[in-house]
């Protein structure tokens, strides 16, 4: 049933075909309890079947009670993404038999979801693009099947901890045209969810799951080609690679005179290909009907406004504000707003440092602070270290007043990341204060000129760059505690005057 497509990567099929991609994204909401019962929602790293009750086990007679926090989170996501929030919405039953579905149906939303429309602005290769959304709805997650094979027989165990967890499904319009674009969309979506603090959206942990509808059509053609649903992608990278593979596979099928079959294909991470899983003929009839156990939801304007009022500033707005408020470049602002926590740490440090120090604080965050955090992991934040925004603010002050040199600042920060000591205390205790006494620096400059006649000769014979060597010598002698500009001007004064 599964066939490995034979793709010739040397053929550039995209010359003739344009890919059209839509995504269906499931995001687990970070609520305290499950969607319809009071069980602890967390299932990652939990003892199987430890977070369950009669309701999420689907026992006879049990009834769902809607988790208001999950509804508020979904509406918050909708507001952040510019969706319409209809006054009337409802839950429906989606019927299909599967052992991971404890009630034999999933409570979902069919024709009246909480959020309609909306869009997300992204950037692909420096170009701005807009991805439009169809809708966002709320549903419950299924249990997990753990497949086992002990040699004698193959069987599946069921962990119900995940059953009934709130799951938000977001459907985009077929607005994307490449794997890179889909990946950029998911990155931006995750950042937005994290800003809202409604989801961690970590694909590797299954907190964000994504299916892609991929079709291709001759460039310029309006009608969409036959779409293929691609599943089983477990990272942003695999989404991008799976889509790229699928586009090329379809192009090759068409190039060879074949037809695209409407089907579901699974991505195999190890080989980087998609394989056929099920054709349209086998598709389910979900027999949706309104959930009789949950009255329809009526959202008044006041409720929506109250949710809106709880929303933080979003990445794009914050980036624009950082650029103008702190005179940062677009790249600097983007780096500082990459995560909500980092952007808030930055602003806390700016406030602590007092007026006029935004730029040195920003440069510390973008440079040395980021370097230390990256060593801890891709998504490490300051709160995981002993360093606080107050540390960065104080260090920026020391730099600005030239009480430490740039070289010393790196050393001070390294110590702070080790011990948590405040920068001023570190400088004091270790005698790292910059040498500000010009007489002392001039004395070293004189000695270095004396000791390096070759460099002096080069400089005087017009090779002005030779001064760099002499500055380095002085700096080393001063153990980095001299200000490079001061050193340079003192050296120049001596060399130019011939002494």
């Amino acid at each position: 049933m599964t066939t490995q497509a034979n793709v010739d990567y040397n053929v550039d099929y995209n010359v003739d075909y344009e890919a059209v991609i839509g995504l269906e994204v499931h995001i687990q909401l970070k609520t305290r309890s499950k969607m319809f019962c009071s069980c602890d929602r967390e299932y990652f790293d939990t003892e199987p079947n430890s977070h369950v009750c009669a309701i999420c086990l689907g026992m006879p007679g049990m009834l769902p009670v809607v988790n208001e926090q999950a509804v508020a989170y979904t509406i918050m996501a909708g507001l952040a993404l510019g969706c319409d929030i209809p006054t009337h919405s409802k839950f429906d039953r989606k019927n299909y038999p599967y052992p991971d579905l404890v009630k034999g149906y999933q409570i979902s939303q069919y024709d009246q979801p909480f959020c309609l429309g909306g869009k997300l602005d992204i950037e692909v290769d420096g170009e701005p693009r807009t991805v439009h959304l169809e809708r966002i709805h709320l549903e419950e997650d299924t249990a997990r099947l753990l497949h086992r094979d002990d040699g004698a027989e193959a069987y599946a165990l069921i962990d119900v901890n995940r059953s009934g967890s709130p799951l938000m499904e977001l459907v985009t319009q077929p607005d994307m045209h490449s794997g890179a674009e889909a990946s950029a969309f998911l990155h931006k979506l995750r950042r937005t969810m994290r800003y809202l603090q409604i989801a961690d959206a970590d694909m590797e942990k299954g907190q964000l799951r994504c299916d892609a509808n991929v079709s291709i059509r001759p460039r310029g053609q309006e009608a969409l080609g036959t779409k293929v649903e691609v599943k089983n992608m477990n990272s942003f990278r695999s989404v991008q690679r799976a889509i790229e593979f699928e586009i090329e596979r379809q192009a090759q099928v068409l190039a060879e005179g074949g037809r695209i079959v409407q089907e579901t294909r699974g991505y195999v991470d190890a080989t980087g290909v998609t394989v056929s899983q099920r054709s349209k003929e086998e598709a389910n009839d979900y027999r949706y009907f309104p959930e009789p156990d949950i009255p329809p939801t009526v959202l008044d304007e006041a409720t929506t406004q109250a949710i809106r009022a709880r929303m933080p500033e979003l990445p794009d707005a914050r980036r624009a504000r950082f650029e103008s408020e702190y005179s940062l470049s677009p790249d600097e602002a983007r780096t500082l707003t990459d995560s909500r926590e980092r952007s808030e740490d930055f602003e806390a440090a700016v406030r602590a440092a007092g007026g006029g120090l935004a730029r040195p604080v920003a440069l510390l965050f973008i440079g040395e602070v980021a370097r230390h955090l990256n060593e801890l992991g891709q998504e490490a934040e300051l709160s995981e270290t002993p360093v606080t925004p107050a540390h960065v603010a104080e260090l920026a002050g020391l730099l600005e007043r030239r009480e430490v040199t740039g070289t010393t600042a790196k050393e001070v920060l390294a110590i702070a990341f080790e011990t948590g000591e405040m920068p001023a205390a570190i400088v004091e205790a270790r005698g790292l204060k910059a040498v500000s006494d010009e007489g002392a620096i001039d004395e070293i400059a004189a000695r270095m000129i004396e000791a390096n006649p070759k460099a002096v000769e080069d400089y005087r014979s017009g090779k002005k760059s030779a001064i760099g060597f002499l500055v380095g010598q002085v700096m080393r002698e001063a153990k980095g505690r001299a200000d490079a500009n001061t050193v340079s001007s003192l050296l120049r004064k001596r060399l130019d005057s011939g002494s």
Partner: protein
Amino acid sequence: MAFDPAHLDRTAHEHAAALRAGDYTATALTEATLERLRQQEHLNAYITLTEDLALRQAQEADARLRVGEGGPLTGVPVGVKDLLSTRDVRTTAGSRMLEDFTPVLDCTVVERLNAAGAVTVGKTNLDEFAMGSSTEHSAFGPTRNPWGRDGQGNLDRVPGGSSGGSAATVAARGVPLSLGTDTGGSIRQPAALCGVLGMKPTYGRVSRFGVVAFASSLEQVGPIGRDAEDVADLLQAIAGQDQMDSTTAPVPVPDFKERFARGLDGLRVGVPAEFFGEGLDPAVRQPVEAAIDAMEAQGATIVRDIALPSVRAALPVYYIIAPSEASANLARYDGVKYGFAVTDGLSAEDEMARTRGEGFGAEVKRRVMLGTYALSAGYYDAYYLKAQKVRTVIRGEFEAALEQCDVIVSPTSPNTAFRFAEKLDDPYAMYLNDLYTIPVNIAGNPGLSIPCGFADGLPVGLQLVGRPFEEATLLGVAHAYEAIADWNRQAPPPVGTQG
């Protein structure tokens, strides 16, 4: 102290008075009740007798009574339909599928019954998953109607259904009160056929949490008893909003006996022609008309120009909505998590299919198939959606009619108790039994069946239908009617062990 078994013919409020006066103890009453229920085993009114639990509850009731804390139900024996979840007591729903299923918690109604100090003596028989009108569709054999005897004195008639066990045990003076559930007449029709009172409260008046679900948007738990006061007392104990059931209404619970002093003078009694047409047994019509005349004689105004033209569509509407909801509600019984399971199948799918094939009876399978069909792609609009629209129309007609009158009266059932197997092979003939009760579930209004005479020695019931949440009006009318006609005091011949 000695307990006179003749006391077992008393009503609940008579017991309550005697218990509070110290005439006998709850323990003595319970022991005698259990003895009588064992003598009446031939009725097959119970699937499970909970003797130990009942005696324990009786002792607790006696402790409360001794310190003067007894309420109207404290120490009073009550039968509980085996569709209501009871903690640590098996709850079968009359199905082989749940033959050995023991819930982990009490349904809200039983919880409230326990809080009131009632003594639950056992789980009463019913049509499988409450689907039926004769209790013949029980995996535990049919219940017998204590009224119906053939020439040899054998009990040869059905008690109605699906709450046949609950009605039969109250009629036979096994217990003064019982709980049933009513989805299309399942309390009122057996109450009528057994010569007792039975009420379906307004949809949303009583919690469904823990009630094994058949058709969620139609069913309510309600009381069965031998006079209006008992029915009011039991309803009082179980009614009211429940945070575990989102479909319970945030409506204050009145004193259900608040209209007992009012009488019938000035009451506007609506008599819709639609409930007296073709299909009504003339022998049933006669006592119903006589009851209406008796009410008029007591000062009631008879309003005959009310119209409920769409109730003729109620039966088809019901047989689309109820099976549709049932098809989803019963999907959870797949042998994977609990209940009956075929474990030697060829595959997981084969085991699930065979579990359902062997675990469910014919009527349940018929309705699951009906519902699955009605919800299928391409049929949804024609069936389910259209049925919901007609439902809205029917609800509107009841609302309009009840502006012209205070209560609507009709026969409860078009016929009296029929013989075993008489309608078993003709589902449509069986469904017609609920012709007058089903519209009330479709509309959601409260309905009460009260005894109003006999036809050929078999009880006839009068149905009273009121405005939403005006159960007190119906109970007031019933109480006033009891003062002028003592049909509710008529007892069937004693049921011996031989039948």
